[in-house]
């Protein structure tokens, strides 16, 4: 069973839930945790992970031989990303715009363009107790981590239980994280921001036909956010857990410690695991 943890809005508690969920599941089952937030990966900070493998993730970047190039400009016409351009002095590649598709080398009439692999990031894999852990890290200045997420998922050992800590937002990298997952936990907070972004991710998981349920974080029992309740009712969504708004949780989290190590909070995550049905696999 593959479970993605996502939220749309950043800072709502994706990593809090992913790491603590893995931490309680490991008591009973072997679990794999993949940090797919490759722009800002934080899950590994919560475990003392021994990384055993590191693999670079590469893109095929064009390499133009300007001795052969006749400056015809067909490559620039066919590139959909504006990543290559012909000037009277030669043809230039703008690496940060390049998606590594190889169209330019396909269309070059004089075979002046070869491709070479250049790394855009790295995948790390290791373990901590009963947790197999993988993360991707995008290099500074590189535009997109989608390929790193893809590679990370290929690279994983696909254990029976897998938790994927998703990037924020609702764009391509979130979709990549969600591919082939069985269940999505939508983490939200009871604010207009939380609701607005919940709607976006709920739309994605619906489009992708992924079973999903909601966890409300930073929940205050004396304050019911009516608009959110209304949305949940309208869409017929399941709320499977509410995590209280608490200074203590924020403090423990700020030290990169796991709140599920504290008996008081452990139950929160055990209940999520039960309700999602991870122990039935």
């Amino acid at each position, binding site marked *: 069973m593959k479970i993605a943890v996502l939220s*749309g*809005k*950043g*800072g*709502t508690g994706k990593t809090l839930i992913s790491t603590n969920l893995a931490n309680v599941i490991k008591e009973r089952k072997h679990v794999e945790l993949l940090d797919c*937030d490759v*722009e*800002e990966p*934080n899950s590994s*900070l919560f475990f003392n992970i021994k990384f055993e493998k590191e693999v670079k993730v590469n893109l*095929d970047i064009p390499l133009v031989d300007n001795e052969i190039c006749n400056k015809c400009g067909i490559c620039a016409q*066919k590139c*959909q*990303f504006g990543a290559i351009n012909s000037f009277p002095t030669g043809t230039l590649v703008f690496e940060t715009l390049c*998606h*590594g*598709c*190889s*169209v330019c080398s*396909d*269309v070059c009439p004089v075979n002046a363009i070869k491709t070479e692999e250049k790394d855009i990031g790295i995948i790390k894999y290791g373990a901590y107790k009963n947790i197999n852990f993988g993360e991707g890290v*995008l290099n*500074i*200045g*590189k*535009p*997109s*981590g989608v390929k790193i997420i*893809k590679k990370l998922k290929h690279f994983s050992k696909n254990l029976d239980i897998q938790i994927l800590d998703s*990037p*924020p*937002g*609702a*764009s*391509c*990298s*979130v*979709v*990549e994280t969600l*591919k082939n997952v069985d269940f999505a936990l939508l983490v939200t907070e009871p*604010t*207009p*921001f939380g609701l*607005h*972004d919940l709607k*976006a*991710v709920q*739309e*994605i998981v619906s*489009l*992708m036909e992924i079973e999903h349920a909601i966890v409300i974080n930073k929940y205050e029992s004396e*304050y019911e*956010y009516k608009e959110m309740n209304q949305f949940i009712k309208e869409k017929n969504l399941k709320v499977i857990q509410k995590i209280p708004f608490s*200074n203590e949780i*924020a*403090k423990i*989290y*700020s*030290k*990169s410690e796991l709140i599920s190590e504290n008996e008081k909070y452990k139950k929160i995550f055990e209940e999520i695991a039960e309700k999602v049905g991870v122990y039935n696999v």
Partner: protein
Amino acid sequence: MFKQIAVVSGKGGTGKTTLSASFIDLFNNSIGVDCDVDASNLFLLFDTKLEKQYDYYGGKKAVLNSEKCISCGKCKTLCKFEAITEKNSEFLIDEFSCEGCGRCVINCPVGAIELIDNRAGEYYKSSRENTFLIHANLEPGEETSGGLVAEVRKLANKIAKEENHEIVIIDGSPGIGCPATSSITGVSYVVIVTEPSISGIHDLKRIIDTAKHFKREFGIVINKYDINAENTKYIEDFCKNENIEILGKIPFDKNIMKATNEKNPITKYVSSSSKEILLISKKVLKIIRGEKN
């Protein structure tokens, strides 16, 4: 000529929108632009009226005509994005995976695939008080968020020029990838918001490196600084060593949640955090006006 200030953070949820909304509220002659296009929340804090809506076409998508397709499988072999799948020798293009490069189109022996324009979202010019707010909505799952960020900024800059605004406030995208870098390219000043958690510090270092990579001048705001005194001290020491300016420290303040829920910038309230934000805004104003402290 107007100046552009970008508010970014690396880690999400540290307070970018809270701070951006405050700047927009405090700086009289400014225009706000929300560059977090796939989780755009800034407009929720203002009383706005939609003036104009624009379609955003970002990139293209490949479409396969199954009647022409001879199931040779060449497209699937060549696609670098694993966007083409085969089921019972019928080939399908997954629109979520397709990056619209056109390699399949160029190489299809029977011309069964074409690239079509892809409507990836929309963006809006909304009016409020004497100014405007520019915001956008990326279609869920789309990939050209950096492109949409560039579009909304272009529109904001155009209006700033026409209306003689002094400042464009950019509420940035989280992370360090294309939407985040598109939020900071060419700006006069970057305000980096962080929080004193180990995760916050980890992400702070990556966004600092990103700001340096793009050669932007920047300063740091520590939000919720009193949540972890030790980590705040660490950030202060780190900034001192690296010669990075700390613009201010905002205390943890429940009024921020109250303000958000009442859909107002925190600066509309008298509170511990709004006092500090006022001081920070004055500092930022001095910096971009080139005045000495």
